[in-house]
């Protein structure tokens, strides 16, 4: 039975965690644990793929006598769970393979090894949980184990701060989820998802649950304005864990959102889509703007995760809007685009985090201003990371483009929506998506160009060495996955048809039977895209051009100093820096996004003082939302502090007054 196999896999992860506690200081322990994780993730992957592709129409379910005594723990493996199990375990297999090489450089393996399998177990368990109690326990377990990994290098003060903010936000998010499930289960305590699905809710309840889910799942996924923890926490963990948190854990949060909003809440109202689309579009643009001005390589990638989560939420919002208006075909298209982006993002974001880990190992630097020229000592890593940069910038023929293209096709179907609110917000969201895609290209030209091209800006960058072959193999497999998903998306779209069918009641037309393996969302005269042909055309044209040039043109080649208009400057400091690269974009978009202000201090002629450029930026969300909130909590805590220093008599009288007040309230309660 499939669900039992998945649960055995989760048990194997737990066993690995226990084993890691016992052996983590032993030599070779990290290899053993990571190899075990690869085996388990591939096993679960196989089970989930079998269930999704050729599984029975009836999802396999099991109830274990653990958890709440009168309910037990329900687990269920349906198409949605199987799809996300594939995403999670593909990511886990990649990260574990990478860690076989990267984990050797870990200074404190005993702080990473035990929590790593536990974190994987937590994510898997969330996906198969089928009652509110198990779901919340698994969710919390996932949060706590990832928190332990975030603070694994706890001696760096930045990491402790990141850990504190992360755990606070995670608790806040779980609180919202707890309230959402409380509302759904009702006073009778019908915690199992099957009972929730069948229940009839009051009119006001689903809207409230949606808001709570936007907070609970949105904070975990990184939806603005709840994203603040993500760029702090994801980079703090070791790079393979960063890849898992950014590429995979945010997807578990998206699973939670889909499970509750699409599956459990019943038929949607049209206005639900407005906050989802609005927040998603704002998150996409805000995330990529932050990424474009960020100097820390891993934090830049984390901000880009925020952007991609925004894109996925726009897709989910469009699907809600279409579903509410009975446009099943369009809803299936939008949901397929969102789900495909979930898979695509897990591929290229893991690849890029692995690349940042390779750079970190080779140079010890995360600040791109201190890197440069890494393409010379690390040519293979540079090639693989370049592929990831092209994929995440939504450029054909790689996979990022396919999901964005499908999303644009869904946007083009939305003039048929009857509501005015949607007619106005959807084109704006489409423009934001296009802006996000263009900015993301700028962001990754900057990241790759400054870190890998040019001349080394620090001795560490000059002394870099190519990373180990296992890490390169992991990155190579992910790049191959990016290319495969980009040129043959039809097979993936067909495979996820049962997932979409279960949520929407319709699915996209079958794609793998189209001529030449094109993808055709509605009709060929309307729109079609063929990644395979585009790839073949580009490859052929490039080969023909290169061949023709080499046959016909002069093959003479001479190395010489750079030309640079006749004034080459030998110092690497004369190169463009990351900050100077993003200066035009900061000036165009940053003036209202970050209140960026530039002040030039130019000394008058004759004054020998150096000229200075001051740039001030503000994080508006932090300053406007979190700083006042933290201030209010601090204020209240200071005021209530007197409670800590009272005499026994005062405490006794306080208890007595509280008791009397409670009794009084009960007495007058109607």
């Amino acid at each position, binding site marked *: 039975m499939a669900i039992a196999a998945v649960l055995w896999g989760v048990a194997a992860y737990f066993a690995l965690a226990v084993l890691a506690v016992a052996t983590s200081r032993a030599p070779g322990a990290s290899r053993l644990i990571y190899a075990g994780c690869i085996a388990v993730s591939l096993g679960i992957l196989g089970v989930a793929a079998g269930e999704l592709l050729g599984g029975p129409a009836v999802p396999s379910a099991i109830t274990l006598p653990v958890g709440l005594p009168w309910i037990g723990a329900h687990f269920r493996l349906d198409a949605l769970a199987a799809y996300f199990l594939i995403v999670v375990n593909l990511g886990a297999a990649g990260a574990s393979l990478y860690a076989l090489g990267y984990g050797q450089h870990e200074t404190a393996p005993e702080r990473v090894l035990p929590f790593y399998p536990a974190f994987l177990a937590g994510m898997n368990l969330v996906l198969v949980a089928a009652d509110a109690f198990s779901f919340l326990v698994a969710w919390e377990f996932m949060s706590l184990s990832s928190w332990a990994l975030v603070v694994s290098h706890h001696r760096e003060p930045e990491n402790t701060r990141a850990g504190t903010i992360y755990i606070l936000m995670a608790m806040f998010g779980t609180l919202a989820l707890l309230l959402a499930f409380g509302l759904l289960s009702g006073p009778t305590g019908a915690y199992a998802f099957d009972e929730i699905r069948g229940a009839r809710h009051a009119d006001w309840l689903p809207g409230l649950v949606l808001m709570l889910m936007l907070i609970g799942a949105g904070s975990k996924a990184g939806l603005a304005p709840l994203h603040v923890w993500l760029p702090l926490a994801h980079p703090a963990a070791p790079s393979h864990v960063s890849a898992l948190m950014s590429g995979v854990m945010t997807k578990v949060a998206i699973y939670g959102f889909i499970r509750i909003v699409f599956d459990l809440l019943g038929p949607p109202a049209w206005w639900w889509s407005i906050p989802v689309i609005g927040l998603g579009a704002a998150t996409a643009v805000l995330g990529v703007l932050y990424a474009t001005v960020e100097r820390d390589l891993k934090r830049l990638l984390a901000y880009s995760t925020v952007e991609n989560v925004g894109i996925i939420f726009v897709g989910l919002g469009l699907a809600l809007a279409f579903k509410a208006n009975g446009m099943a075909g369009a809803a299936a298209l939008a949901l397929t685009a969102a789900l495909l982006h979930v898979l695509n993002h897990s591929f290229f974001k893991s690849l890029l985090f692995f690349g940042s880990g390779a750079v970190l190992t080779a140079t010890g630097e995360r600040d791109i201003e201190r890197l440069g020229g890494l393409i010379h000592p690390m040519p293979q890593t540079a090639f693989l990371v370049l592929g990831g940069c092209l994929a995440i910038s939504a450029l054909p023929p790689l996979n990022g483009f396919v999901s964005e293209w499908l999303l644009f096709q869904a946007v083009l179907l939305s003039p048929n929506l009857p509501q005015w609110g949607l007619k106005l917000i959807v*084109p704006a969201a489409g423009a934001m998506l296009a802006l996000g895609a263009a900015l993301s290209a700028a962001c990754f030209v900057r990241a790759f160009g400054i870190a890998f091209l040019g001349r080394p800006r620090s001795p560490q960058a000059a002394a870099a060495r190519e990373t180990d072959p296992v890490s390169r193999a992991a990155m190579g497999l992910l790049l191959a996955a990016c290319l495969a998903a980009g040129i043959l998306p039809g097979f993936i779209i067909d495979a996820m048809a049962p997932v979409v069918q279960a949520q929407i009641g319709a699915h996209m037309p079958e794609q793998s039977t189209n001529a030449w393996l094109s993808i055709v969302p509605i009709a060929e005269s309307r729109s079609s895209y063929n990644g395979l042909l585009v790839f073949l055309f580009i490859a052929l044209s490039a080969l023909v051009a290169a061949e023709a040039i080499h046959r016909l043109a002069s093959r003479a080649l001479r190395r010489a100093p750079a030309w640079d208009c006749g004034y080459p400057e030998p110092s690497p400091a004369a190169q463009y820096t990351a900050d100077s690269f993003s200066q035009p974009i900061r000036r165009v978009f940053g003036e209202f996004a970050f209140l960026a202000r530039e002040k030039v201090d130019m000394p008058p002629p004759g004054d020998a003082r150096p000229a200075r450029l001051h740039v001030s930026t503000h994080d508006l969300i932090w300053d406007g939302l979190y700083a006042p909130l933290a201030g209010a909590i601090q204020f209240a805590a200071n005021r209530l502090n007197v409670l800590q220093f009272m005499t026994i008599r005062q405490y006794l009288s306080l208890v007595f007054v509280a008791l009397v007040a409670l009794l009084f309230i009960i007495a007058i309660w109607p």
Partner: protein
Amino acid sequence: MALILDLAAQGAQMLLVLALAPLLLGFTRKVKARLLMRQGPPLLQPYRDLLRLTRKEVVLADNASWLFRAAPYMIFAATWVAAALVPSFAAGLTFSWAADVIAIIALLGSARMFLALVGMDVGTSFGGLGASREMMFASLAEPAMMMIVFTVALVAGSTQLSTIAEFMLTHGSLRVSLGLALAGLIIVTLAENSRIPVDNPATHLELTMVHEAMVLEYSGRHLAVIEMAAALKLLLYLSLIACIFLPWGIAAPGASPAAYAAGLVAYLAKLTAGAFLMVLFETSIAKMRIFRVPEFLGAALMLGLLGTLLLFVSRSF
């Protein structure tokens, strides 16, 4: 037989854009010179320039990487494929459905990404400057282009250029939204092809250059390939305007050779007119300060968004 004819038409289209692109460049230079009361270089000068570049030796900067040597071919291939997918003399060619207009824009985005990256490869200040400004322009020009595409696609009910051309031929009428889209597309065309008022294609040794700054370190055959890609891009944008807004004369799918010939004549006439108008605009305006360009491109974005919004409000605009 029909298949062979279709494939031949597709191949002819690929070779046609390749052959015409330098001529178009030569024509714009000639017209510009005549408008400035100069004699100007001969029409065929770009071909001679390209030929001479391919015969010269490549002088490669000391620390240029493998990317620097591979990228010209990638830039050329992406641009060539994109240019070959825009209907020129005939619509509905065999492979025209492989990529719609969104994919064509994204292909140009791929070429741009490689171009900006190689600008930074040697590690000179000019290269980084060009790359940074190019990406800033692109961050506005690309969404503007996407909104223009949305406007056109909502009118024609398709993002396939062949279907759009067919729709415009049969149901085309004067619409507010299409006017907005055309104005936006002209702005984007000027910006994307480094024309005045955004950039100056004739400039060198100036702090204002963008495209030239990125390719400053290239020489010999590499420069020839990149220059060819730039010429193809100009041809692509003019063909795009012609195909969407002036589709008259374009041959229908599976037409007779005579219709293809008529389509070719119409296409050449449209290119000539388009290039002439572009040069006329260029000579009558001064180059902008660099931070005026975002406002110029922002206008294109707003025009595109306005067109899309109008169509969301009512399909009849």
